[in-house]
């Protein structure tokens, strides 16, 4: 039954109906998460109020990594099942993944300044986020550089899988590298006293980010379907949906 939605034409209106649900979920969860983060969670003993960046930094970082895996998963599905929709899904996810990676780097940098005194710290998390950003950008660039969409999808899929296999190795090597050069360095987010309220706020914001990602990805997927199947009759008929 699920496979009947594997055709872009069939999934297009479904995606359109799903977007508002996920958008509302995202808004509600974000409101809850921000409320907990700013009005429930207490001031941190060592970092003062600056630690509240955690409620956007950690969810952004989690989403950046999670979305890459989902993207690679869709890519694998596309290569195995040869479905057009899978490649389009991977293309739809990539910019959002890159956005969260950038946001993780930006917020991490602004958190590092009051905590460590500099805007950039070569710690394991930030450095591997940077490499992840390069992986996302490479994926987007490769797809943009290949004219034929089907070929671009398949080449991108191979690249995404190559990246996915290497990400654990890259992360391990960056962790090794940072402990080598900084000794036993404490990660930005490894706070020994993580109050339950702080964790709640982080989880709520992470769920909000997830719902947001789904909503935006589905919107972008519809745009991709429109641009690729543009001349088809059904597009003009369903223009209102």
């Amino acid at each position, binding site marked *: 039954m699920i496979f009947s939605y594997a055709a872009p034409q069939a999934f297009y209106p479904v995606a359109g109906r799903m977007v508002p649900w996920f958008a509302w979920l995202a808004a509600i969860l974000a409101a809850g998460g921000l409320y907990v983060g700013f009005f429930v969670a207490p001031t941190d003993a060592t970092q003062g109020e600056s630690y509240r960046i955690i409620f956007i930094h950690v969810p952004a970082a989690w989403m950046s990594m999670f979305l890459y895996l989902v993207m690679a998963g869709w890519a694998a599905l596309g290569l195995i099942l040869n479905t057009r929709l899978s490649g389009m899904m991977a293309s739809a996810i990539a910019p959002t993944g890159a956005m969260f990676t950038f946001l993780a780097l930006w917020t991490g940098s602004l958190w590092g300044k009051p905590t460590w005194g500099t805007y950039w710290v070569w710690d394991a998390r930030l450095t591997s986020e940077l490499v992840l950003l390069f992986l996302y950008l490479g994926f987007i660039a*490769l797809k943009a550089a290949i004219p034929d969409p089907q070929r671009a999808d398949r080449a991108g899929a*191979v690249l995404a899988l190559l990246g996915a*296999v290497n990400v654990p190795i890259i992360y391990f090597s*960056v962790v090794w590298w940072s402990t080598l050069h900084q000794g036993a360095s404490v990660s930005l987010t490894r706070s020994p006293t993580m109050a339950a309220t702080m964790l709640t706020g982080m989880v709520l914001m992470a769920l909000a980010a997830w719902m947001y990602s789904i909503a935006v990805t589905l919107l972008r997927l519809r745009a991709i379907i429109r641009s690729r199947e543009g001349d088809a009759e059904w597009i003009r008929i369903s223009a209102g949906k």
Partner: protein
Amino acid sequence: MAHAFLLLVRRDLRIALRRRGDVLNVLVFFLVAASLFALGVGPSPELLRAMGAGVVWVAALLAAMLSLPRMFAADLAEGTLEQMLIAPQPLGVLVAAKIASHWLLTGLPLALVAPLIGLQYQLPADALAVLLAGLLIGTPVLSVLGAAGAALTLGARGASVLLGLLLLPLYVPVLVFGAGAVLAAQSGIDAGAQLALLGAFLAVSCVVGPLAACAALKIALD
């Protein structure tokens, strides 16, 4: 299969030696890039000694990437690439041959020349030995993953720059362990662990890289 492998390697080597300039270009770029870093930061021996491992490795990575676009492009233009795909031998064997000849013409010369550049950066003898060993293990990785990258960007717009963007994140472990090994040797620590990790990464790449390269070639020539 071994016969086809050797034939292809010997053919690539013969073609390359007819155009020796390409091989030398890579080496000259290596030397120039490494010298640029020294010119950029000044001649202080302590600073150079601290930077040397990283500089030599980064310059080697960049130089090795220079010749990658050519790996399949020439064969594509001549039509021999299509022949490779319909040949009775498994595509993997032929791709392995392309990787081997790339390494012999790029990675191996880079590794052998690197100790000379290490001297420019005041590296002691035992560090130079680790530098050589690391590059001998690491440059094949560049060729293996590079084959995948070259196959993916075949016929794409702006292939050579795109290749860099695609491959450099994947090269991070090679750089970290390779340069880390030299730094360990410089501090008197045993570099064995780093070299072993480099070897492990080589083993993983040898499985993943050719798989990706074969898939990418089939996609490119569909």
